[in-house]
């Protein structure tokens, strides 16, 4: 297993990581020959909580790349995100020409190189040379302990969700983040509060959020401006073609019957899960909302290029049926 990377500019990596940062303390980095995946999932119950999959074109971030492993040259690591970000910030502040990243077997606790004999612990070493104000050359090395994920159980958990039964997709305008701010006011009421997202192609595109507390209030917040809500032709499609179809802004050939109530779709999610995406929505150039029969997905592009995709999955809650209630 070998991982050797070098970069001069960590800006893209840093901004992507800081978008994922509020979600969880640990993330999984998956280095593949073409892509770097930054994955934030809950290790225990993957399906219950929102997960984020970022995929970055590895050649756009690093200028020297060497990845080799027995598993299709793919290396997956679990790492403390805050420490990684701290290191990247330190590198930014330094006067240096390049950051090197290596995967090392060595123990990070600095003892006399004791190997714990535990196959899963290693450290990710990030190092660079810095010339300080008194023109001393100082080499900095940061060793962050990582857990290498290689057994099948770990990998099972780490499967990118598939998009089945896509019902509606829409490109959200950049100003959409103000809806998040509005909904923030309801966050404090109850911890586990849920929110129902309603979308429809009728009325030249409708997207609304219903907040309700039994017997107390019912609030609907909706986007008044026009939305290009589309129904994809295929029931199931991968992220790539989905995004393309939205970005191309293909005019919808279907004629929408404004009286057809079956056009209305809705999904219920946790308000907290939805709100956590606010930073991502605020910073990304392109945001596409996808509603399937069971999930709600925010598919984002960080900048104008295709280099960084951030996909935020929220699994919907089944509408409470009377027996559960």
């Amino acid at each position, binding site marked *: 297993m070998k991982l050797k990377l070098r970069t001069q500019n960590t800006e893209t990596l840093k901004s992507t990581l800081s978008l994922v940062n509020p979600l969880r303390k640990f993330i999984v980095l998956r280095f593949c020959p073409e892509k770097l995946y930054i994955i934030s999932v809950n290790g225990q119950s993957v399906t219950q909580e929102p997960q984020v999959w970022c995929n970055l074109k590895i050649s756009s971030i690093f200028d020297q790349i060497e990845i080799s492993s027995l598993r299709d040259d793919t290396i997956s690591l679990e790492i403390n995100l805050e*420490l990684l970000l701290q290191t990247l910030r330190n590198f930014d502040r330094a006067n240096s020409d390049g950051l090197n990243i290596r995967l090392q077997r060595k123990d*990070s*606790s*600095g003892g006399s190189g004791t190997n714990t004999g535990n196959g899963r*612990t290693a450290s990710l070493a990030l190092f660079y040379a810095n010339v300080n104000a008194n023109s001393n050359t100082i080499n900095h090395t940061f060793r962050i302990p990582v857990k290498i994920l290689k057994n099948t159980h770990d990998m099972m958990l780490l499967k990118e969700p598939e998009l089945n039964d896509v019902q509606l997709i829409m490109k959200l305008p950049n100003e959409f983040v103000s809806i998040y701010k509005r909904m923030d006011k309801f966050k404090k009421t109850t911890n586990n509060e849920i929110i129902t997202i309603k979308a429809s192609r009728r009325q030249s595109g409708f997207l609304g959020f219903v907040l309700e507390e039994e017997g107390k209030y019912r609030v609907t917040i909706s986007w008044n401006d026009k939305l290009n809500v589309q129904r994809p032709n295929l029931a199931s499609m991968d992220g790539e073609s989905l995004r393309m179809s939205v970005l191309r802004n293909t005019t919808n050939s279907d004629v929408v019957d404004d009286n057809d109530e079956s056009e209305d779709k809705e999904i219920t999610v946790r308000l907290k899960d939805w709100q956590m995406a606010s930073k991502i929505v605020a910073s990304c150039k392109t945001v596409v909302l996808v509603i399937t029969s069971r999930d709600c997905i925010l598919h984002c592009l960080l900048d104008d290029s295709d280099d960084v995709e951030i996909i935020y999955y929220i699994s919907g809650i089944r509408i409470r049926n009377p027996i559960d209630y």
Partner: protein
Amino acid sequence: MSFVGVLDSNSHKTMWSRAVMSLAAISDHIKFIITKQSLSLSAVNSAKTSHGEIIFNRSFFHDYYVDFSDILPEGYGQETDEQLNNDGVDSDSGSYSFLINSKHLATLFKNLDANNLDYICFKIYWSVSAPETMKYKFLIEIKTKKLIIKKYQTNYQPVFRNKVKVAQIYRQELQSTQEQEENTGSIVENRINHISIEHIIPKQFLDMIPATTEDFKIDVKNEKISFSGYTKQVLKDREYLKQPMSVTITLNLDELVSTNLSQLMSGEEPMKKCINYRLKDFRNFLNLIGSFSSTSVSEGDEYINLNKIDSGESFEILFKNPGDPVLFESQNNPHVFIQFIQLTAKDENTDAETTNRVSTEDPRKAKMALSLLGHTIHRIERVEEPVSRPIAVSQLPAPSQPLNIPRLHSNRPSGRLPDTRTSVVVPIHRTPEPSQNIPSSMEVEDFVTYRKESTPPSARRKRRLQEMSEPSRPTPRKNQKSAVADDTDYSDTDDETNRNENQNQASEKEISYGPTQLNNRPKSIF
């Protein structure tokens, strides 16, 4: 007045406050040592693994006055000849040492707004003839720019000076190491290693490492030196309990201001050294020297600034082997000298090797010299104790054993003397009971020392020295310690209250003592 120190300059006031805060972070007690040349503040942590000392030269003060004449014997000490030779200090170097609760000082000097203060003045009345209410008190007077004078006083506990000799020994050994290596051309075993480094390098380094980092390592190999901050990792069930990041900076030895590690002898391998110690107090030291240099820069004192740039704002590190102390010294300000000592961790692998090497000399002696001592309370039982002695003699079953008296006296079990004291009506103004300042902390209890009345002064000093040099000497049993404290305090009080009165009164009191002592005395004899 026996001691006066006045701080006038704003930067010096700030430095004083920083120094106090820095030492307060090490220990609950700060030791003051006043000599004619300097005022030193020091602190040892309770585990006795780190020691910080800041020496303010008398030139640091706007006004500095010390008068040792007629001084109270507790806390006052004179260097012996041996120490004098090593120090090269002139012969009349007396010193007065005492402990102050650092919390008291910290509350006073924390967030000190130096610009709004006119002066800070410290005063001690340590003369025997000083008024009772002024004795054993550290007086602080602060005048603000708004012409308000604030006066504070705190009790202190006189202690022995207990000079930490690590620096002195290391300096000597460094010199002999250098001489030997120059003569023989080969590396001396067990040498002292010396590094002088610009303080900005470790400072910037410490800014980068996570605040939770616990340990620090200095590693020398391949003509490079590296500093690492790390935390020992804790694993449980293959998961990290502690998830530490280690940060290392590496630089070539020639980037240092100076060092004796790079003298590569022909045919010899590059030197390999590695020491580990706790980061907390090292961080404290670096913050302190960092703040000292920044205060004078912000003052805009051109003259000092130039000097500083010349000296490169560096500090020195002296170290030996793992397990031995590491010494940090900084003298970036002409008036202040900062010295921190930190015990290093002993690597188990090299443990055997080290002990073998040391065993040629007397290991106990070597170790003792390098260890960090706790504080020793300096107590003196006065010779002229007019009341208790005649009675004690008369009460003894066998008057032919007067030599035993002092020992019996000091070993008296607790609970007796307070009774005695309450039967006396005299104590109007009592000496502040110093033991209140220092709650029964381990460091104090272990080293309680007390004086015998019958010992002649010269023998007394000799004994005191003995006790200082072998602090592990068995002290009285635990339940007797408090008795000793009570005892000593009682005799002090008695003595001082009586001094200003005449002998007649004393003989009157004799009678009032009688019954209590008569009843109790036989039981206390073993």
